[in-house]
């Protein structure tokens, strides 16, 4: 029995598209304990959602797991049959998607869609399920639950719908909640409300959360651990403090430099990361970030850097760190 609730080891996953194999995940390892919040940060296409979806067995066609193992709560998820997997989905692991506007079925009422999850995973009667659905709506801060249950998704605002999605996700009190950019499609004011709600619920219900986002600001306030992903690899992993106060990878540093700061000096400029993300169909031989890296060395373009442990949980994949270590070793 692993000490971790989620333990993903060396996951490799590819999409076999007509244009060729896209290596979406390349040796991804992630773990988190019960009740912890893990943030996965990265730009679009870095593989953050793919990692989370594969844990639920939701990998979209034509994606295929080609290596590694995924454990959830001691079960090896990648070896499970679809039937076993279904018992976990929506019950022990739940997910909130990015776009609440399209994630609810337009032809069924809110009540129907919340109750569906409850009826599926518990022995509750229809009446009890309705009561539970009402409770859930109240829990996620929707008033007049009786009326809302009878409404259709198109009658609710985006923020409301995301709350409904959260209610559905929490229906069976999951051990793990995956939030896939839950606030990206929402207004800024609503974003803050939804994040606050999620933290509130975490405190009340004590579940673990995997927070997928491209917004470092979001993870800073919420997460215990942070994984920074780039081109299908976890290039730096650590506690929130490690990542924010002691970033090692040039990409992480770049990301942090690009966050607007409230204590910024006047006329201090944000520093963007130059260049464009890699083409995943033709990934570079060496470090994928090398072409955009200011400190790029000859070796970076040739070889993928090995993993360097920097502490208990903190690790990174960067030749610069290797160089430092070697120089330290030479000095000794």
């Amino acid at each position: 029995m692993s000490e971790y609730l989620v333990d993903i080891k060396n996951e490799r996953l590819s999409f076999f598209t007509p244009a060729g194999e896209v290596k979406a995940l390349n040796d991804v390892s992630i773990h988190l304990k019960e009740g912890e919040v893990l943030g996965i940060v990265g730009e679009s296409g870095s593989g953050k959602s793919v990692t989370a979806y594969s844990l639920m067995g939701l990998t979209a066609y034509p994606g295929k797991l080609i290596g590694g193992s995924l454990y959830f709560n001691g079960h090896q998820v990648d070896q499970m049959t679809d039937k076993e997997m279904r018992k976990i989905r929506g019950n022990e692991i739940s997910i909130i998607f990015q776009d609440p506007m399209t994630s609810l079925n337009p032809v069924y009422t809110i009540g129907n869609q919340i109750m569906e999850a409850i009826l599926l995973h518990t022995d509750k009667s229809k009446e009890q399920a309705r009561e539970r659905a009402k409770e859930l709506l109240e829990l996620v801060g929707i008033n007049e639950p009786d009326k809302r249950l009878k409404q259709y998704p198109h009658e609710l605002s985006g923020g409301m719908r995301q709350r409904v999605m959260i209610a559905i996700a929490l229906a069976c009190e999951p051990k793990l909640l995956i939030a896939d950019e839950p606030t990206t499609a929402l207004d800024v004011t609503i974003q803050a409300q939804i994040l606050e709600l999620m933290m509130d619920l975490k405190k009340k219900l004590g579940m673990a959360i995997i927070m997928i986002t491209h917004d470092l600001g979001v993870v800073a306030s919420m997460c215990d651990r942070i994984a920074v992903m780039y081109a299908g690899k976890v290039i730096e992993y650590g506690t929130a403090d490690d990542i924010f106060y002691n970033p090692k990878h040039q990409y992480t540093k770049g990301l942090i430099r690009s966050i607007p700061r409230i204590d910024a000096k006047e006329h201090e400029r944000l520093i963007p990361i130059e260049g464009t993300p890699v083409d995943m169909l033709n990934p570079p031989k060496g470090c994928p970030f090398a072409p955009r890296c200011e400190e790029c060395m000859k070796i970076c373009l040739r070889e993928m850097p090995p993993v360097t442990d920097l502490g208990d949980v903190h690790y990174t994949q960067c030749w610069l760190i290797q160089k430092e270590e070697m120089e330290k070793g030479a000095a000794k």
Partner: protein
Amino acid sequence: MLKYIAKRIGLAVVTVWAVATLTFFLMNMVPGGPFLSEKAISPQATAALEAKYGLDKPLFQQYLTYIGGAVQGDFGDSLKQRGRTVTEIILMKFPVSARVGGISVLVALTLGIPLGCIAALKRGKFLDSLISVVATCGIAVPSFVICTVLLYTFGAKLKLLPTVGLTSWKNYIMPVMALSFYPTAYIMRLMRSSMLDVLGQDYMRTAKAKGVSGFVSLFKHALRNAILPVVTYVGPMLAYTVTGSFVVEKIFTIPGLGGEFIGAINGRDYTLIMGTTIFLATLIIVMNVVVDIVYKIVDPRIKLK
């Protein structure tokens, strides 16, 4: 809802009136008349007949008389089939066409919808390719080709099925096959593409993430969304099919409304042409309203205006 129906009925009446008016004047623009071909009758007799049916009056007056009668439900007597009213003829012929057409539509739906769904679910697999090929060929073969091939194989060569009339259930097999061929293929294609579209929607992923099984997710979440284009197609298709296919009725000598209509046009049976056209137009409009209401029931986002 009531207001909506009232509005639709009002619109329908206007449309039927427009169709009737257009048909009336177009029909009379065409040279020739109902009694010209009957060479045996003397000019006096023709004149007498025309006077009897009011055809000697100015066109506009004829029009007013006709519309006046039609509003009261009187569509006049057939000009060619003496002694029978247009209403009688339609009431006699329509059930025949409707029975054959109705069965065909049912066959098309019961075959087309499941097969289209299966093709979408097995996308890219052998079964999908097979169904798609059959459907694509199905919409490429004209009905008269189907009819004749059926007639040749089952009627003439194998002598399994009767080729003429509608006396036993066996008589229905070939016309129904011929009539349902195209709609079945069309519904299969429609269902497949709309199902593929729905399967890629985010809410299907949500359903899966909830732990809903593939079967339930298909029947509860996908089908109701994917069926909408089929509903749109089936409405008018039903109206056209139950009023009789000209080709199928001609080839299998079915005494239905379709054949009657062609006969009426060729013989300039003005009143029968008008009556059948109004009947068909009304049916199509009614079907369209039904489609709209079904749409509203299936998809709550639709607002009836």
